[in-house]
């Protein structure tokens, strides 16, 4: 298919989407691994609560999530104003806010995948590592983490794909400002809202699919390499 030439604004949306999705996914990864580890391995007071909170963005209509983000992380929101006064970090109506929204929406998907993988790691191998002198942290880094990589990759892909498709929470939280918060899917949405926008929507949709498919293929190749290494113990 030949792509009709894209407008400057559309290129901007593509670049922005890539940036937002990548940052969202990578920045939430450490927390995702931590939360997944806690949920998989620890029994603590508040386990169910944490689990519930992680799933919230999935359960709530995205618009509601967006409103909650707006209330909490907006300039006048309690977290938002704290972040601004303390770190000078402004999320509202910035691409960073879009990344936050995407990260939040993708978080349950990421955590679930990672958690499943952690649960599949053989505790006997961790025991063996302990007896060889590895502290719990080193066991995690040298045994658990490498063995759960397939789940981490799956989680990254799901979250990335979700970030590419997400607009409900994003547009509600940080609006739809070209060059700053207008991601590809927000642009697509905008096109669907006006008469005759179908062609534009289709064009951008195809681009979105191409990007995500590339990410998907990459992840499969990666997972296969990791898998090959571990295969058939």
């Amino acid at each position: 298919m030949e792509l009709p030439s894209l407008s400057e604004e559309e290129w901007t949306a593509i670049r922005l989407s890539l940036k937002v999705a990548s940052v969202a996914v990578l920045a939430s990864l450490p927390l995702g691994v931590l939360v997944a580890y806690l949920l998989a391995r620890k029994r603590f007071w508040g386990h169910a609560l944490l689990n519930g909170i992680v799933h919230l963005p999935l359960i709530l209509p995205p618009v509601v999530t967006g409103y909650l983000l707006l209330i909490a992380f907006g300039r006048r929101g309690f977290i938002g104003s704290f972040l601004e006064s303390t770190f000078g970090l402004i999320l509202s109506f910035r691409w960073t806010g879009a990344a936050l929204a995407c990260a939040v929406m993708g978080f349950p998907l990421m955590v679930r995948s990672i958690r499943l993988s952690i649960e599949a790691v053989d505790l006997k191998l961790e025991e063996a590592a302990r007896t060889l002198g590895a502290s719990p942290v080193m066991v995690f880094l040298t045994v658990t983490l490498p063995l759960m990589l397939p789940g981490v990759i799956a989680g990254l892909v799901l979250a990335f794909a979700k970030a590419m498709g997400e607009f409900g929470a994003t547009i509600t939280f940080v609006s739809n400002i070209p060059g700053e918060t207008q991601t590809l899917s927000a642009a697509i949405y905008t096109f669907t809202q006006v008469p005759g926008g179908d062609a534009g929507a289709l064009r951008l949709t195809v681009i979105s699919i191409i990007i995500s498919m590339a990410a998907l293929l990459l992840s499969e190749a990666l997972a296969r390499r990791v898998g090959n290494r571990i295969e058939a113990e």
Partner: protein
Amino acid sequence: MTFAVEIRHSQGDFRIEADFASEGGVTALFGRSGSGKTSVLRIVGGLVRPDHGRILVGDQVLLDTSKGICLPPHRRGLGYVFQEPRLFPHLSVRQNLNYGQWFARSRSSFADPDRIIGMLGLEALLPRRPGSLSGGEKQRVAIGRALLASPRILLMDEPLSALDEARKAEILPYIERLRDDLNLPILYVSHSVGEVARLADRVVAMADGRVTGIGNASEILGIQTIATGRESGSVLEGLVRLQDEDPDLAAIALRGCRLLVPRGDLHEGQKLRVHIPAREVLLATSKPQGISALNVLKGEIRAMTGSDGGAVDIALLCGEEVLRARITGLSAKRMDLMVGQSIHAIIKTVALDPPGRAR
């Protein structure tokens, strides 16, 4: 290094009560399948925290539940060979072997990679991943990995069970050297009487989670006929005296008698232990002539007990050593044996296991 274990623990319906101590060297846990050997090892290794317990190695307290002390496994300085290989599937054989070295505070002199890799025959496997190794290859890598971690205690759970005789014969002397030269306390689980007799300074017999006997190899392996089946016998200790008569042989001076054994790499004056299975001792009422066995010991019958299968167990006093023999009831009847009778014990020299060095 001394070693003391005191454990009370319940897992499911299974209850473990094990108290034993050792002056060091190899302590063998011996007992039937399911008697709790692995469970004890896991507790000593810190993988299970027992309901009550106290574990000392030298003067270091690994565990004392009454004082709330429980050293985590990675601080116990372990080398643990598990009953199954437990290799890391994402690491190459080389990386598996090196794993413990990444964390070892210091490298023991015995943890020389080339040496251990050579002994275990792992050279060709180094770049491979564990997935496609054979059963015995995996077990060898697991042994190497534990040794290379420069442990201060070695826990070995049937480490040689998947290996062929030739490979075992290469590894056993190495373990003996760890025991003797390095004073490394070793807790060793095995079903093989030969291995245990050869290695163990102290044998702890277990059944149903309880210790049913503690003693040196001779006492336990000689007495515990139930545990050992047809493998009952004597374990004797003495000094090596080289022979001028035949360079292939050496004599072991025991208390009041001597035994000829293959010389191997023995040297004069060395302390040494041998295991003589009772079923390999023949008795003769008169001194046999022109016989291929080098060892004919004169002795006196001290005890005779009927055993299952019509066999008779006989304890002889040769000099000051007690030797056990097992013969058929029919022979005993024919030879008209009685306690107090003087007798000759015939032992084929090559029937002895190549003896390990005692400390």
